Structures are given as C-alpha cells and as structure tokens.
C-alpha cells in the first residue's frame, strides 16, 4: 500500500483487520489501511460500502468487533469521541449540528469542555479562520450564514483542538464549485503543516485532484488502494462499483411543445423562522423536456417541491399550472389525478412509510389515481391482490432487490427503495413528473437506472423537473438548467451552453440581477 509514497516516516494511523458486524451484516470486514503524516488520504466507496462505519470506529462512536487501531505506533482503543479528540483526531461531519439562533462563537463555546470567555473564543476562532483562509465572523448568527460558512464553523471548531488527523465526511456535497475550490486550498495548507486528512467522498474528480492516496471500499472490504492521480475517473468508478456503470445520455427534446409545467410568480412565505420563502418563481417546462434545478441544499428546494406537488397550496390558483390546468389551490391528490407524479427527496417518512410493506407503500401514492383497481365497494375496501399485482410489476420493471416477498420499506437499501418509489410513479401514465434529489444516497448502479428512467419518460412526451444538488447528474440528464438560490430561481438556460463556472456563480447567488440580502436575515 505504501507503493507510490515517498515518505519514509512511520504511519500516523494504521488500521489492521478492523471489523464491525451488525446482526448478520459485516459492515466492515477486516479493513486495513495506513495514513502517513502529511497526506490527504481518500476513502472511496458507494453508499453502504462501510465508509461511515469505519469512520465512526475511528472517532469512537462505534466499538470495533475485531481488529486493531494503531496511532503513532501505539495500539489504542478509542471508546468515545472525547478519547478520539484527545489523541488528536478531529472530525467534520456531513450533517452539521449547529444552533441557528446562536452566534458562531456561542456555537463553538457550547462544544467546549471548559468554560472559556466568549470573547476569547471569538478571537481564537477569528485568528484560526483567517489563518486558514476560511473567513468567518464569530459574532454572526448561524441562521444568517450560508451552508459553506456553516461548514467553516465545524472546521474551525475542529481546528481549535489542533488535531493531527482530520476526518472530512463528504465535505463538498453542500458547496458550490467555487466554495469547494476554497476548501481545497485550506486542505493544502493543512497538509503543508504536516497534518493528515482522511477525505471521504464519492466525487472522483475531487479525489483525483487533491488526494495523495486512495483506499476503495466495497461491501465492507478494501478492494483497492491506489494513487488516484494515476487513475482515471472511469477506473476509480469501476473499482468502487465493481463493474461498469451505464452512461445515461439525453437526446434532443422530442416533445410537441405543449407547456405542461408552469409557475407564474410563485411566492410562498416561509413556514418556520428558519425555512426559506419562495419568491416570484417563474418556470416553464414543455412536453418532452427535462429541466434541472440546481442549487446548494437549503435554498428552497424542498419548499419548491412542496409547492409543485400540492403538499403546500398557494393562494393564487394560477401560480402553478400542471398539465394545462391551474392547480395552485389544489392538493396533491387532485394533481395526481391530472397525470402528475411526485418523488420527494426524503424516502423514509415522506416518499414511503418505513414500517409499512412495499404493497402498502404502493397504496400510499396511488390510492386515488388507481382507485378503480385498488379499491372496491363503497367502503373503500383495499383489494390486496390488485395492489400486489401492481407492486410486483414495479419491482420487476425497476429491478428492485429485496429480501422476503413483501418486506417493510425500511428493509430495503436506499437505492432499491428509491427505485421502487420512482417505479411507483413511472408505472402510471404520467404527463408530468417532479423529482427532488432523485439519486441522493443511491448507489451508482441504481442511480444510472433511475436517470435512464427519467430520460425515457421525457422521450415519451412527459415534462420533467429534476431538483438536484448533483451537478454531474444535472448535466447528464437535463435539457435546460435553472439555479435556485435563497428561494429565487434563475431563468433556465440550455444545458449545452452552460458552464460549471456559471452555475457555480448562480449557486452562490451571484446572479446577473444580484439579490445580495441573505434570506435568513428577514426570517425572524
């Protein structure tokens, strides 16, 4: 594993045969790897490959069932995050845990073991953040900060303890391309100081760009170790997935030009103080067209989805038009009856009920549209046979892998459940499909299948809106792209002429008609 590494020093951290078993599942199966001082080490793998489990063992959240962790040549047992921090291991999680109503400095103070005067914390935080090129106002309210800035708080919080190993879990998933560039500069600086970084990602381009070495996990096992700079994106993907992934391409728009999805000055007030309000959203999608809505998480994507699906209605009926009708005041059931399908971002507890069987989850979204087949008598009796027939059809069409005949939704992997939820809509005769983050947390094989299904649906003449944070996906399947920022939507532009740089600027809010006042500032 040390092959291309020229450093001769002993590894900072070495794992030998680390194993974690949940029930019958070996989440981590005898994982060995070494991290040298001053290197950026990538941990690659699909969702469910065991990355998070491995990292949780390193950070003392989970106890390994077997194997050894050697830190600076000494075998150690890390049985709490506290112990991990004491050794000099810091971690920046993918999901932040910050109090929005408190300032940056207060949030940092809350995570300290000792009580330090707030002014002192603020000073140290300011010095650190400037030193590492992560500008941060310690007295700003977290609620007013962008996701990128919030991530800086977490990073500064970690740096305050002067760690020698910093674990970053999917750090760029919430950043614009420009913010990511800035983060990479910080990482370079940390490396030049001799600190090591364990960088978890599935974005292969980044890994090739900044990482010195990579360890690839699949199904809980190490399946490869390499110098990512010697590899191509395709070869890394093959290692990660264990096979080739079909490319999805979108052809020219083959629709008849009818407008099937339209919003006119769609505005919605924020429902909670920290939610995003939608402002004057104009969107037009024609038959046969896929429009992608890019943007950094938390800029109004789920609010827009709710407004389009009818889970939240608008005061003006003509604010939303679907399939040729004003539906602003109509609920989700009536919109479904017009031939619209909806796939929300959250699978558990939104798109599906976790503790219900797949066939019940079939009824969830289709009890109205398929009332004739699914329901009998005036009493609304459920016809289990008919429901099961449809469920089986979807399982077959989307190749949903499951154990048992009709398992609970919670028993399916993220990718398989997403295929089911997607298939549940595609199995109907749709003219409109609205999807939020179609492949979030989904393995590459399932993601490719879902994207292909979206493209095929558009070919058949439906209009599709795909709300996605994944720029690769956006470019892969969209005819045109709009960007949402602080609840405003940029005008959509043809995907062919758009550059990543321009999208990055739009995602950061630098739109031509720049609206520079942060949304959250009004939200009190």
């Amino acid at each position, binding site marked *: 594993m040390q092959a291309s590494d020229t450093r001769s020093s002993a590894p900072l951290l070495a794992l030998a045969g680390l194993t974690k078993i949940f029930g019958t599942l070996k989440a981590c199966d005898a994982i060995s790897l070494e991290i040298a001082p001053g290197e950026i080490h990538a941990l690659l793998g699909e969702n469910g490959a065991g990355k998070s489990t491995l990292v949780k063992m390193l950070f003392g959240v989970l106890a390994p069932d077997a194997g050894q962790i050697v830190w600076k040549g000494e075998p150690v047992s890390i049985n709490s*995050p*506290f112990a991990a921090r004491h050794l000099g291991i810091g971690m920046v999680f993918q999901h932040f845990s910050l109090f929005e109503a408190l300032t940056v400095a207060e949030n940092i103070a809350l995570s300290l073991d000792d009580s330090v005067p707030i002014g002192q914390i603020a000073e140290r935080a300011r010095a650190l953040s400037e030193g590492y090129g992560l500008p941060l106002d310690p007295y700003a309210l977290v609620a007013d900060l962008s996701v990128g800035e919030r991530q800086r708080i977490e990073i500064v919080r970690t740096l305050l303890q002067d760690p020698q190993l910093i674990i970053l879990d999917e750090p760029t998933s919430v950043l614009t391309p420009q913010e990511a560039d800035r983060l990479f500069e910080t990482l370079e600086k940390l490396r030049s100081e001799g600190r090591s970084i364990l960088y978890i990602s599935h974005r292969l381009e980044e890994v090739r760009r900044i990482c010195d070495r990579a360890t690839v996990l699949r199904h809980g096992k190490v399946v490869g170790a390499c110098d990512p700079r010697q590899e191509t994106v395709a070869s890394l993907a093959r290692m990660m997935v264990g096979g080739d992934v079909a490319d999805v391409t979108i052809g020219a728009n083959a629709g008849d030009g009818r407008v099937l999805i339209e919003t006119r000055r769609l505005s919605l007030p924020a429902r909670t103080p920290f939610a995003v309000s939608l402002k004057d959203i104009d969107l037009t999608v024609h038959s046969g067209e896929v429009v992608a809505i890019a943007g950094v998480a938390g800029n109004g994507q789920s609010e827009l989805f709710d407004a389009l699906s009818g889970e939240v209605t608008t005061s003006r009926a003509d604010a939303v038009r679907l399939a040729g009708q004003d539906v602003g005041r109509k609920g989700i059931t009536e919109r479904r009856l017009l031939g619209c399908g909806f796939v929300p971002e959250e699978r558990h507890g939104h798109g599906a009920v976790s503790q219900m069987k797949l066939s019940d989850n079939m009824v969830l979204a289709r*009890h109205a549209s398929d009332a004739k087949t699914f329901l009998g008598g005036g009493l609304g009796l*459920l016809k289990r046979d008919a429901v099961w027939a449809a469920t089986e059809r979807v399982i077959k069409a989307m190749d949903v892998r499951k154990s048992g005949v009709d398992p609970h939704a919670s028993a399916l992997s993220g990718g398989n459940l997403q295929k089911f939820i997607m298939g549940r809509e595609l199995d109907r005769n749709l003219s409109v499909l609205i999807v939020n983050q179609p492949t979030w947390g989904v393995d590459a094989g399932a993601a490719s299948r879902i994207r292909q299904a979206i493209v095929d649906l558009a070919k058949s003449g439906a209009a599709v809106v795909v709300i996605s944070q994944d720029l690769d996906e956006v470019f892969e399947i969209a005819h045109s792209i709009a960007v949402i920022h602080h609840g405003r939507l940029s005008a959509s532009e043809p995907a062919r002429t758009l550059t990543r740089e321009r999208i990055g600027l739009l995602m950061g809010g630098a739109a031509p008609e720049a609206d520079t006042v942060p949304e959250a500032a009004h939200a009190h």
Partner: protein
Amino acid sequence: MRIELEKRPERSKLFSILSPFIALGLTLIVGAVLFLALGKNPAEAMFYFFIDPLLVGWSLHELAIKATPLILIAVGLSVCFRSNNWNIGAEGQFVMGAIAGSIIPVMFHGWESPLVLPLMMISGAIGGALYATIPALLKARFNTNEILTSLMLVYVAQLFLDWLVRGPWRNPEGFNFPETRNFNASAILPEILDGGRAHWGLIFAIVAALATWFMMRSTLKGFEISVLGQSARAGRFAGFSATKMVFFAFLFSGAMAGLAGIAEVSGAIGQLRPVISPGYGFTAIIVAFLGRLNPLGIVAAGLVLALTYLGGEAAQISIGVSDKVARLFQGALLFFVLACDTLIHYRIRLRSTAKVANVAAAPVQSPAPVEAR
C-alpha cells in the same frame, strides 16, 4: 454510569407476541409481593383476586358488565392512538355520553316506546363525540397539547354531572338523594340472557371491536389512520389531511366512550348518580395497550382488566384488603406493558459517565472542544 436505551436493529416477533403475557406475569409477581407485605398469604389472595370471581355464574355476568365499557372505550381509543392522537379524556366523554343519552329518560320520563333506546344510544354517542370535539378543535386550531386538554375536561364533565344530579335533574320523589329518576322499562338495555345481569352493551362492544378491526385491516380509512399515525409527512404526501384525522380520531373515540357511558347507565345502573364510573375511561387506556391497539386483542384485555375490578371487590370482602388494590394492579399492569414494549424496541446499555459528560456537553454528534493550554 449512565443507562441508555439503544434501538434494536430488529425486534423479535416472538417477544412481540409474548410481551402482554410477560407483563401479566410480572404484575402477578408484584401483586404477590404486595400481599406478602400486607401480611396476607399471597396464594390465597391471588385465588380470591383472580380465580374465585370466575367460578360462579352471577360473577361472570358482573365480569361482562365491567368489560363492556372497557372494551367499547378502548376500541375507540385504539383508533385514536394509532393515528397518533392522544385522547386521555375518555372518562369525561363517557360521562358526557351518559348525560346526553339520559336526556330522554330523565326529561321525558313518561315516554315509553321502542324508539327510546335507539335514540338514547345515538344521543349518548353524539354527546361523547361532541365533548371530544373540544380538545380536537383546540389541537387543530391552536396546536394545544391534547393530552392536557382532554384530561382536564374529564373533571369538568364529572363536576357537571354532579351538579345535574344534585340540581336540575334531581329526582323530585327521591327524598333529596342526589340521583335522577329511575329510568322506565323502555329506557333500560335488556339483558342478554334471562336471569343474568349482563346487558346488550356487551354485544355493542363486540360488534364495535369486529367492525373496527375490519376497518383498520381492510379499508382505505384504516390505512389512512396508520399512515398518519406513523408519519404525518408521508400522510400529507399521500393526500391525507392530518387535521381532519384529529377530528376523526377524537369524534370516533368520543362516540365510543359516549356509547359506553349511556350503555352503562341504561344497562347496569338505571339512573344517573354523582359517580357512574370507577375510572373506566382511564382503565380503558391500559386495556388498549394491553390489547396491542388491536380491537380483537382489546376484547381479551378488557376481560382481564374487568377481572381486576371484580377481584378487588372480592378481596376486600374475603381477606379484608382495600379495593384500592385493584387500581394498584391496573397501574402495575400498565407499567409492565409499556416497559415490555419498550424493551422489545430498545435494549438497555450502560455507558460510563466520563464519556457521557463530554458527549452531553455538546449539542452535536461531533463537537470539537478547545483544549485549554
């Protein structure tokens, strides 16, 4: 050391079924210890409490009478609880149902007709439902906590009944006793069997249990109830309204409690008195959970809890312990049912305090403390 509950990856099917029985067993053990502490022979006490009432015919009828309101109320509550609405005020709805159902036999006491009973039952159910609308409305409009409002309304209902029977509805020929007139024959629920006291209320209870079981299992309404109970967000995605469900759940459980109230007054008591329930509305909560919120399980659980009422009376007479022992058994049973259910979903883990202190110090999964140096 700190004790933490950790979610089990999967729950055991076997123990899910066994859980109510384990809870019953543990309650019996606690009961035995209790009787020992009171200086009674536990075996003898247990015999009088749980076996003796089952050995004589009249007492089986009493069992049916006591089980009737418990089952009716608990069936209503099971729907309510499954939809994630927490109606704790069934006792109040029971009382209000009894009052509303008694309007005809008290105010038109001379009217004898086959119509009287059906009208009484319907108005009883409506009375309970209307009274349950109050916490429903407060929850739907102002997002109040329905546990508190429904519970507080119990005491309002009880005092209202007390005022009625001492004031406007007092029997003018009743020597100033706080009671209404005795209902005339056509306002009395008939007995199921000649010579036994068990009345038609039991038939209502069983029909209600079967109908509710069918609704929950095979209809879209039942599906809607489960979906909204498990995830309001998924329910909204399905096009179900959580607000409407609040009203449905409260109206349904209120109507059941109201029907139980008028059936009790009309079938077992024959008039209104200041106190018409030994806490059926609260005991029914235990019945609902012991029956696993399944209407058929509730029929069995209702019989078990009815036995604790009878056993309490029997033990008072035969071995001279307070009939409050019955409430103690009921409380212990609820405790063990909930504890067993919790342990099916979670396991107990001990954690040392050193770690916990630091984890707890942060709002975060991953706080990074500043090392003072």
